[in-house]
């Protein structure tokens, strides 16, 4: 995986989180983001971001990070 590709995924995940922050509770926002990722991201993209969140995750904003942690329950990280 190139860095450019991962950078894009991180940026996209953060952007989705930023656009869903306005909910009553943070857990609601997290759920919106998780649902969005589940519904619209390809399997490979999910696996890549999950792998990143598990190993590093620094560049993800808090809502995105939690959402991807949720995602990790269903999608195994990408195998190298």
């Amino acid at each position, binding site marked *: 995986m190139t860095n450019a590709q991962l950078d894009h995924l991180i940026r996209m995940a953060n952007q989705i989180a930023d656009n869903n922050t*306005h909910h009553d509770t943070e857990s609601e926002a997290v759920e919106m983001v998780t649902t969005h990722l589940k519904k619209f991201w390809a399997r490979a*993209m999910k696996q890549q971001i999950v792998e990143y969140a598990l190993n590093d995750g620094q560049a993800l904003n808090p809502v995105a990070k939690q959402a991807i942690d949720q995602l990790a329950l269903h999608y195994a990280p990408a195998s190298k």
Partner: protein
Amino acid sequence: MLQYFNPKTDTPISIDKDLGTPPSLSENQVSLSIDGVELSVPEGTSILRAAALIDINIPKLCASDNLEAFGSCRLCAVQVEGQRGLPAACTTPVHDGMQVTTQNYKLAKLRRNIMELYISDHPLDCLTCPANGACELQDMAGAVGLREVRYGFSGENHLDAEKDQSNPYFTFDPSKCIVCSRCVRACEEVQGTFALTVDNRGFGSTIAAGQKEDFLESDCVSCGACVQSCPTATLMENSVIDQGQPEHSVVTTCAYCGVGCSFKAEMKGDQVIRMVPYKGGEANQGHACVKGRFAFGYATHKDRIKTPMIRDAIDQPWRSVSWEEAIAFSAERFKKIQAEHGRESIGGITSSRCTNEETYLVQKLIRAAFGNNNTDTCARVCHSPTGYGLKTTLGESAGTQTFDSVSQADTILVIGANPTDAHPVFGSMIRKRLREGANLIVADPRQIDLLSTAHRSTTLHLPLRPGTNVALINAFAHTVVSEGLEDNAFIASRCDQKAYQKWRSFILEEQNSPDAMAAITGVPAEEIRKAARLYANVKNGAIFYGLGVTEHSQGSTMVMGIANLALATGNLGREGVGVNPLRGQNNVQGSCDMGSFPHELPGYQHVADEQARGRFEQAWGVTLDDEPGLRIPNMFDSAIAGHFKGLYVQGEDIAQSDPNTQHVEAALKAMECVVVQDIFLNETAKFAHVLLPGSTFLEKNGTFINAERRINRVRKVMAPIAGKEDWEVTVDLANALGYSMDYQHPSQIMDEIASLAPTFSGVSYALLEDQGSIQWPCNEQHPMGTPIMHVDDFPIGKGNFAITQYVATEERANRRFPLLLTTGRILSQYNVGAQTRRTDNQTWHAEDVLEVHPHDAEERGIQDGDWLGISSRAGQTVLRAKVSERMQPGVVYTTFHHPGSGANVITTDSSDWATNCPEYKVTAVQVEKVSQPSEWQQNFERLNQQQQSHLLKGRKGRQEKEAG
């Protein structure tokens, strides 16, 4: 007694017949007798029309049923019992008990005298006249029995008036003009441009374009309405002058924009002589624009790809091969890639220009034969946020109205759209409604032409900063709620209360007030309040929006904001209101409906929905992936990362139309097999290994769906240039991949679509043949389709207010890139321009230019025509300058119709958060004077020459083969 009948359904009268004056919409019936025949017609009908309905054809010259009657030729004089004089039938409405005589000695004599006067000033060169056989003056001379002309031709006349041939598509020959003013009225009433005038009076009167300019220099937009309405050869298509009158015609649908105009392709053998907008077409009602009417010559252009071609690598010349060889070559490569790199290593792109049937087959091939969901379409880069936003709020990914519904709107709100250029026929309909008294609000960074429509009611322009749409719509909604302008009854009965309450408290937050948002949008708070009141206080408020809404980092949010506003004001579910996306290309709606997106099967059914997927699995006989596939930008990223290796592209030019060209090119170069199916060697094909000749809309059968969900038939008028319609090629490729497809005709593909997509279940070619067109949903509940959506409820039950928090785009002006670039299009060119650049439409727009505000120009010492280097964080290109006050200072503007301009070299990969629709409408740039093309452009030229020579070799090879 004969009742008035609807000519569309129950009459022997052909839709093509000119009934003389427009229909009256009155519900009151009036009874009268004409030449002893009793009949009843709606109040307000003219005598001329009433007579025509019972096939009594009163001679006429200045009347036509698409124009208001003018009463100037007097040829239609009739006698009315008990009334003095001989009134003109076209300007006299019927009344109860009226007794009309249309033929007697007195009338015949009068008509002959009139004709004699006309003919005395008319060149009698009928045999060599291009209108010969299709001239109303000729017909009338015959009808009134004109036998001699006593005045001679030597007196003062117009016979040697000079021709105006400035327009590339039609000629104005004033020597043949009878000054009936039909052209003037067509330009005003049908097109709304007011380019023509009648100069002088009486005998000396003549028709002139603008202030005695020629047509090309005048305000004329070359829509052709005047040409169509001219009863003589005065205004005539050059194609008819050159080739003669057509002998047969076929009704079909325009392949340019999302208006989806119906046309009669008028033919001579298999040659199209002219395209005439079809009166029976419900979207366009007999009108068209310069693209659809005139720009069809590309179909027979010498650049058309006529044989399949292949090559092993993209730096090699092409080789012409048979269809079998090209298909086998592609299938083998795709299979090999999948064997080496896995099932998900290839994908495909469907086209918004191809038919529904073709699009459906391509996504089916990808899902069933490739075995993954890596399908996407160019709608990704234009209207994907519409799908997301409208589905979330209203429950269906489509506009809510018919075009015609605008004729009942009281306030028309246009956001980020430029209808007079991008959707010209609909633009004319809006203008007509404005002249009738509707208010206009335009939210757009640019001063669009619609704003210059002369009308009496209120016009407001909200020139917001690019990228601040959501701030604007929130301030709008804030005003509506805080001033109590909502439609509480509608909200109570039609909307989800929990969502509403949540939204209400959100929108009332101070951050969303017009005063707080003014700093962001640059639009004064008072202007926003005025606009909100103007929209919410009228009976019918209608919203139309375009790519200026969707192509933003918050495109989806903005679409939801628009839907919120319509919900809050109850502007949904009836005529005259609604939320209407103006689709760019002809079949954007259809390509989305047909399951082109990686997460949705045809009919917007999610791939993870087990029931829906199950039905597809059963019908297609395969197991389908339950995970979404890659979107176009994800495919590119994955290609550069080395995972994604093969692509089947039908009818799209991603190398030109997608943002950040250099990134796209790198991705294409990284692939091992790119199969491009197109009518020309497009930019993407320069990176391809297989080139499969496509067919134009004139060469195939199928359907398109326009922006009002209208399914229109596309009919074949000539044989495909390379022997196959596009759907046949996809069938062959699927079979070669080992997945069997067996269709004899596109109608069978539509039957399959109807069996799988619930909103299409009632659609069939037979029904389309019968009805002309159908607006989906068309199913058991709505067997004849659904012109207006959401009348009783929403597909999701209750309307859903969505929270639309404004989040500033990352693409901001800064010290390095202090200006904001926004992009758009113009009337004469279409999208990437592959078609229109190969027609005389070039006359109007031979290059893309950069529009710069005088203030920014002065600061940089820029003058009209200077070469400008434009750089962004993605790249650099060079365009010519045009100093213009259409934008505010700080904003520059260009179009992207020409590949060499490289407008997309500078657009970035910033995109909509929900759908990855690229943010074309905002790029931070710097502009400076330069002396030479950019490096990208120089490379582009080099590559272009190389690839053209590769193509030439391929073509030569074929000729040698054929000769040998």
